[in-house]
């Protein structure tokens, strides 16, 4: 990857400096803030803090991608955009990790997310009060609303003029996407027939030019990395802007330990090309997602903090939540061609809020979701809800009708449970760090919820003119593990992501979620990060951390 050809990448100079020519460092003595992880949360924080004049260093385990050279229109090869290091999985419903819910490299999961950009509802922040389940957040929707506004404007989210569910009713900053794919059209027609309201999805994908980037060309490979740069990612938006504001972003640098000086964090230890380095900092922010953040905290135990850092409550690693994300594939008499267009272009939150007569608490979002051959064949062959396998002639004949299939996908709320947890296993990786173990089992409410959703997806599929043929058991996203709260005995961080135990240690990202909601989480991850940034800037200016 020598760097003597034409400049095709906005960060070419930084990319070369960070990964190729050894480690040239800008704030080797000490930074004001060291951010671990350059994903959805880390990107927002890096930009906001650098803009405020703070000396920021971002350490990212994965590479500094160049969309033109590193991405491809191909499912199999682009699995490398995910965190593929082996994690042990356990429980009654062991999770699929990797490409299913994690990112690796600058931009993190935003590099391969579908771009669905929803807000949580007011009820999502108070499920204990409203429904007697889960836990209340230490903040309300209204604490976060200004930050949702800010992020959506800043990245030009496209969406409908009117959004019928939740506290935010629209309009979105950029026009709604048009046209929509056949699968999305059929889904909306099916919903209409049943009296279920649906919308074109709000998306972090451009519907018109913005900031030197073009609108979407409906290539359809959002999950394999956007090549035209029409889809938002931290890689092409927040990180380049952070660098322009003076932040240093070091890729291929894996943080293995948080360093302590007495009761305070002093920096981190990281590995780059087999050598260990230190980055000292006044404040450390962990933004390494739901598995790696608890892993780091647990692995950094000292005699002063024998249970791991920030863990006097014992809640580090606990109450992790995926979304239940079952799929229904149905066969239609006409061609649908699931490969075409942005994968998610229509959705409904008709079933979002608790309705007691359904026999479970909370609810879900249903989306029309595209699918490609590797994704569809893999899912219907090996991830069937009935636990059977599909192979041989049956699989081949099903896939010969690939173009006749439509797909609906669930984003279902999973309630927090302390037994669903990230812990350290006895096995070690090549850096000598214990491999994390991720344990997950659905609880009764979770199962009732997704069974209800499967019923509704089947109904909508039939209203689309399709015959539901394959129900796939899957999960999406991952949240929790370092939850926020007002009570230091039952939570890891406060409402701003600041550790209850160690005042100059912050946690950002989905790991601070208290509950999972029934919405795609990225908008909330970024809004929370922006809120943390505001608080931290104020505190650091007043020398308050």
């Amino acid at each position: 990857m020598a760097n003597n050809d034409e400049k095709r990448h906005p960060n070419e100079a930084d990319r070369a400096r960070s990964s190729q020519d050894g480690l040239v460092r800008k704030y080797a003595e000490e930074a004001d803030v060291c951010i671990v992880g350059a994903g959805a949360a880390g990107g927002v924080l890096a930009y906001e803090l650098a803009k405020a004049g703070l000396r920021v260093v971002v350490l990212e385990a994965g590479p500094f991608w160049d969309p033109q050279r590193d991405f491809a229109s191909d499912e199999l090869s682009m699995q490398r955009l995910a965190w593929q290091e082996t994690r042990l999985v356990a429980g009654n419903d062991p999770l699929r990790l990797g490409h299913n819910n994690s990112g690796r490299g600058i931009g993190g999961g935003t590099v391969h997310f579908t771009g669905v950009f929803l807000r949580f509802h007011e009820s999502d922040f108070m499920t204990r009060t409203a429904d007697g389940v889960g836990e209340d957040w230490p903040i309300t929707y209204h604490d976060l609303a200004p930050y949702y506004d800010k992020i959506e404007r800043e990245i030009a989210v496209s969406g409908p003029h009117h959004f019928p569910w939740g506290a935010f009713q629209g309009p979105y900053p950029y026009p709604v996407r048009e046209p929509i794919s056949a699968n999305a059209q059929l889904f909306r027609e099916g919903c209409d027939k049943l009296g279920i309201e649906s919308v074109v999805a709000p998306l972090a994908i451009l519907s018109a030019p913005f900031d030197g980037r073009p609108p979407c060309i409906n290539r359809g490979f959002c999950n394999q990395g956007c090549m035209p740069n029409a889809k938002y990612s931290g890689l092409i938006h927040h990180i380049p802007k952070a660098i322009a504001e003076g932040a240093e972003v070091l890729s291929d640098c894996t943080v293995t330990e948080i360093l302590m000086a007495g009761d305070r964090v002093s920096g981190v230890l990281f590995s780059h090309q087999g050598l260990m380095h230190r980055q000292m900092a006044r404040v450390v922010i962990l933004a390494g997602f739901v598995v790696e953040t608890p892993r780091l905290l647990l692995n950094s135990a000292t005699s002063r903090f024998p249970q791991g850092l920030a863990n006097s409550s014992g809640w580090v690693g606990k109450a992790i939540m995926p979304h239940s994300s079952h799929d229904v594939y149905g066969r239609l008499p006409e061609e649908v061609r699931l490969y075409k267009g942005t994968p998610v272009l229509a959705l409904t939150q008709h079933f979002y809020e608790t309705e007691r007569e359904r026999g479970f608490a909370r609810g879900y979002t249903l989306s029309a979701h595209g699918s490609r051959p590797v994704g569809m064949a893999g899912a219907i062959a090996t991830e069937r809800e009935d636990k059977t396998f599909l192979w041989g002639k049956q699989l081949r004949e099903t896939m010969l009708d690939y173009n006749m299939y439509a797909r609906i996908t669930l984003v279902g709320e999973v309630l927090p449970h302390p037994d669903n947890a990230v812990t350290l296993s006895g096995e070690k990786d090549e850096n000598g760090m214990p491999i994390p173990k991720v344990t997950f089992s659905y609880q009764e409410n979770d199962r009732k919820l997704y069974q209800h959703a499967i019923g509704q997806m089947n109904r909508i599929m039939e209203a689309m003119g399709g015959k539901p043929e394959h129900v796939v058991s899957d999960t999406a996203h991952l949240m929790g593990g370092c939850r926020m709260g007002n009570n230091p005995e039952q939570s890891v961080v406060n409402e701003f992501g600041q550790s209850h135990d160690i005042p100059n240690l912050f946690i950002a990202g989905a790991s601070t979620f208290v509950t999972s909601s029934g919405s795609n989480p990225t908008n909330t991850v970024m809004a929370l990060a922006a809120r943390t940034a505001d608080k931290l800037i104020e505190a650091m200016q007043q020398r308050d951390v």
Partner: protein
Amino acid sequence: MAKHRRYPAYDVWEEHANWDVHTRQIVGARKMPQVAHSYLLPAEALLLQAIVSVLVDDHRLEVLTFVVAHIDESLASPVGESQRKVGVPEKKQLYRLGLAGVEAESHAEFGCEFGALSAGDQEQVLKRISGGSVKEQEAWTHAAAVDFFKKLLHDTVQAYYSHPLVWSDIGYGGPAYPRGYVRVEKGLTDPWEAKANGE
């Protein structure tokens, strides 16, 4: 391959000149897979090819060779498995034990090696393994038959449905950059997409 293809005249590779260079390299390499293996022993590679052929119901050598080469490459690679269930051996070991288990099961049920069985008998052996109802229990003491079958089927299907010949079979539009799609709505197709009437 009893069932007919909907798009017999369609060949997705014909469009490769319209794909970006990186994608063209990746997909093109699948048409010329390595026959030398890094992890699998020659006998294991042959056995794996016979199993893959049953799993995907296809006998085209060029496709099967690619699938086996891809699995071999992943077995030799330092890249992780994303996740591994507690109690399941590492992928390398799982394949070694599992392939031996298939051979053992074939001998236990039919008295000869898997490669020499009729297609129906091969299917019968794999059916037992997929359901965990194996006759030769001892071969599966360190790796559960179902765990092996799931990993094997997963890896096989992912590679198989990445081959451009298979994309053509099913009418998948394939790579779409830099051109994207103009006609995405119901009933519309761009000129280069597969057409059921064979145009």
